[in-house]
């Protein structure tokens, strides 16, 4: 039998046949590894989870015209730069002054589905317009004109290009629409009338112009800046910008949350080390006679260190394996209960957890193992 085989036989026998003792040590390592693995998983998943949460607060990127205006084609071209998975919603807007009963109101033409996705916090009393001839009105407009869901409304439009002469002779464009919903946002959106872009084009007899586009894009601030750089380079008619109010607060919250998770991870690692060191000190104290016996029959300090370190590293390995699996379950539960979505398994966290677990156990064992080498066989083996 080779020495290495005997070494393995001894350390596995020590772990397997002294189960109750080693279980305490294994438990503390496994708990530490579980929290480490869970928190690291959460740490790396927080931007995705929080990004999804932040997206419910509306657009974080806008397209404005580089010159005077841009087209829907430019919006599509700009949006194509963004990866489909990152693009939560895109809403192009065209604003025109229209009149209701001769009183001017701003009409916004948009893609209703896109607006719904980009601004999920909008509350619509009734339904979003789904087909031509339907519109929704802002709460303030509805209040001013006493409009109700299901009612009809006539909008008139006077092109800005008309001369004074034409204004006297040519009649305004008018169209009648059915009101499907009343928009309640608590913001300036309540002062507008919303209809589809084709409906607005029909009313204004002018097609394809877009004043601004609002985009909701998932990903961190860095990713957003990259997209903006690429869009500005690829689509000259468009100037893309971040909505600073949203992205800055998103970055701040994410940074603080990640720092908190990191801090907790460090504290947990330190506590694990203290726990393992305490357990190992108790184990060494309990095994003083065995250590004395080993030294008496010829074990060098190096052998004693090797055997104890071997046992502890094996414990670290086992604790790391258990912890990395339990950690994923822990992170999954946190994600489901806090963010209401499942977490993706990151394979690389398994070896990292195992290695950190081994390293922490090794470090925590150094002092107790050192004290093991100081055991005096003559003292501990003294007859009774």
């Amino acid at each position, binding site marked *: *039998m*080779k*020495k290495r*085989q*005997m*070494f393995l*036989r*001894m350390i596995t*026998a*020590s772990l397997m*046949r*002294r189960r109750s003792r080693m279980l305490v040590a294994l438990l503390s390592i496994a708990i530490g590894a579980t929290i480490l693995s869970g928190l690291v998983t959460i740490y790396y998943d927080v931007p995705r989870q929080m990004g999804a949460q932040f997206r419910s607060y509306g657009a974080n990127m806008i397209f404005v015209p580089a010159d005077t205006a841009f087209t829907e084609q430019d919006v599509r071209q700009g949006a194509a730069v963004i990866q489909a998975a990152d693009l939560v919603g895109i809403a192009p807007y065209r604003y025109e002054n229209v009149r209701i009963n001769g009183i001017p109101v701003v009409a916004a033409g948009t893609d209703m589905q896109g607006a719904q996705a980009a601004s999920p916090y909008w509350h619509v009393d009734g339904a979003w317009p789904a087909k031509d001839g339907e519109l929704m009105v802002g709460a303030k407009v509805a209040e001013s004109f006493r409009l109700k869901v299901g009612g009809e409304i006539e909008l008139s439009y006077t092109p800005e290009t008309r001369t004074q002469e034409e204004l006297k002779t040519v009649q305004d464009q008018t169209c009648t629409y059915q009101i499907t919903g009343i928009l309640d946002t608590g913001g300036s959106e309540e002062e507008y009338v919303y209809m589809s872009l084709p409906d607005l084009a029909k009313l204004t007899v002018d097609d394809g112009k877009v004043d601004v586009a609002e985009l909701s894009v998932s990903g961190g601030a860095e990713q957003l800046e990259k997209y903006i750089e690429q869009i500005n380079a690829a689509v000259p008619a468009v100037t893309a910008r971040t909505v600073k109010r949203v992205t800055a607060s998103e970055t701040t919250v994410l940074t603080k949350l990640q720092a908190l998770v990191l801090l907790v991870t460090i504290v947990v690692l330190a506590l694990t080390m203290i726990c393992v060191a305490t357990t190992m000190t108790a184990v060494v104290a309990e095994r003083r*006679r*065995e250590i*004395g*016996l*080993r*030294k*008496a*029959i*010829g*074990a*060098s300090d190096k*052998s004693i260190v090797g055997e104890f370190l071997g046992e502890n590293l094996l414990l670290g390995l086992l604790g790391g394996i258990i912890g990395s699996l339990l950690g994923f379950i822990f992170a999954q539960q946190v994600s489901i209960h806090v963010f209401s979505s499942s977490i993706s398994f990151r394979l690389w966290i398994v070896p990292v957890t195992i290695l950190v677990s081994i390293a922490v156990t090794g470090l925590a064992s150094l002092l107790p193992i050192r004290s093991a080498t100081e055991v*005096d*066989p*003559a003292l501990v*083996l*003294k*007859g*009774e």
Partner: protein
Amino acid sequence: MSLLELKNVYKIYGELHALDNVNFTVEKGEWVSIMGPSGSGKSTMMNIIGCMDKPSKGEVLLDGVDIAKESAKNLTAIRRDKIGLIFQQFHLVNYLTAVENVMLAQYYHSMPDEKEALEALERVGLAGRAKHLPSQLSGGEQQRVCVARALINTPEIILADEPTGNLDEKNEEIVVDLFHKLHDEGTTLIVVTHDPEVAEVAQRRIVLRDGKITKSVVNENFTGKIRFS
């Protein structure tokens, strides 16, 4: 040259002289017992001869080497290579089986060999208990495993500290019979005991009192094949 020679050995703790000018020799193949009451210095002498302690003064020559001048590292090597230890409390590793406990001594000495370890257990009549843990063995059986572990590396000296102190009469007889066998095979035995019956079967009996050798008695009836009775 004697295998072991103690010259003017003192062990002093403050005012206490645990060993006080001790001189004696042990020849190769000799069986010597050291006896005396509690506090006479037996354990101190056992620790010094067993290279687990150093004298305050004097020379302890083992195979011509003064172990009093050796470093702790060298003393470990001497223990490993030249001395087989037997303890009153057996001191077996409780999570290793009987054969693994014997192999432990091989592991630190040279190379573990399960076959040889099993043969050693067979010599002490424990071949059938090789896979048992110490907790599954009786006191006598544990002491026989301890003997097998002590002899596995064929040491120069087997040093036994109260080897029968925790045994009943039957097991005491078995262990002493084993010592006879080992002695017949040429092993040098030093047995520290306070039991006169165990001490008297040795070739020579040294009596310690207050750290001094008060008596050295040669067993005139020792034939080399003497039985314990």
